């Protein structure tokens, strides 16, 4: 009887360890897929800023000094019908120098660092962040 109880305990322990390993592997796979999708969302919003800055005369155009007003602290929900889940985007805009350093001397902080952070569903273990430095350069007059 004692041996039978020991055997059941052994079976149960092996089963639990096995299931945890399988679950862990599945989590990693889900995380990888969500990370790729989150990266696309972050890239998309930075490309959107790029594109809008190329048409400053149009109604949708964006000028360098409007980046703060229109994008700082902006939050968007992306309900991706094809992908089948929802992501949350947060954008912050910081003054920075030509290297993207936000802690440099204030007289050199003439550019803007746009940081796009994407948080996702539970399967995304860590938020994905992409950033880009924008300068006052304009396509007007080219």
């Amino acid at each position: 009887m004692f041996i039978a109880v020991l055997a059941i305990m052994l079976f149960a322990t092996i089963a639990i360890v096995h299931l945890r390993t399988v679950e862990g592997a599945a989590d990693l796979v889900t995380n990888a897929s969500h990370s790729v999708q989150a990266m696309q969302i972050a890239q998309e919003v930075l490309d959107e800023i790029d594109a809008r800055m190329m048409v400053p005369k149009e109604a949708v155009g964006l000028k360098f000094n409007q980046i703060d007003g229109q994008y700082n602290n902006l939050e968007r929900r992306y309900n991706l019908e094809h992908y089948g889940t929802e992501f949350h985007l947060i954008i912050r805009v910081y003054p920075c120098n030509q290297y993207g350093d936000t802690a440099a001397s204030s007289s050199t902080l003439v550019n803007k660092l746009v940081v796009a952070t994407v948080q996702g569903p539970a399967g995304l273990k860590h938020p994905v962040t992409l950033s880009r430095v924008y300068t006052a350069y304009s396509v007007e007059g080219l």
Partner: protein
Amino acid sequence: MSVLLDIIGSVIIAGLLLIMLTTFQYQLTETAERHMYAASMASHMEQASTRLNHLIGLAGLGIEDPRQAVVIASENRFIFRSYWDFEKDTMGATSGPPNVLSIVLVEDANEAMGSAVLIRQGNDAYIEDDVVLENMGYIFWVKELKYKYYDLYGHETHNTDEVRSVDIMLTFRREGPMMDSRGLENRLQLRCYLMNTWLQLGTS
């Protein structure tokens, strides 16, 4: 009698343990292989999205009128003009007609790997006789490809003159690592901007 029962009991327990360990071993092997497949799939998806972003960003390059950049904008095929030579991955001659690039899903692209997105370069909207790009012409493991088009203001459009960005919805599928295992399916949705049409618009 009790000795006999003990022996029978221990044989049953040992047998169960062996069956359990064999099953677990099989499952662990499959999980590990699926994990490897999925990791390569994630890397493949990332490469595919980077490539599509790169190609579509060059749509309309050198075309003075951005309304002439897109040739066909339908749900399953996207064809555009550009003076970029995608075959040589360099700027092409601007004196002649522009190159025409098509990004289309083909069901029987490859016997072994099934359907694939084919990227062809030619000089007209008839793509069947065009050359598939040597270095970046195939994106494999794609089961489904759908496009949605947007104008300058982010409104959905079907008018080729107005297309300034495109949503690409991809479903990747790869058979499982073992004979009887489920296939691996992943989805990806990305928006690519036709950057050169925006630039032409801003500088014209």
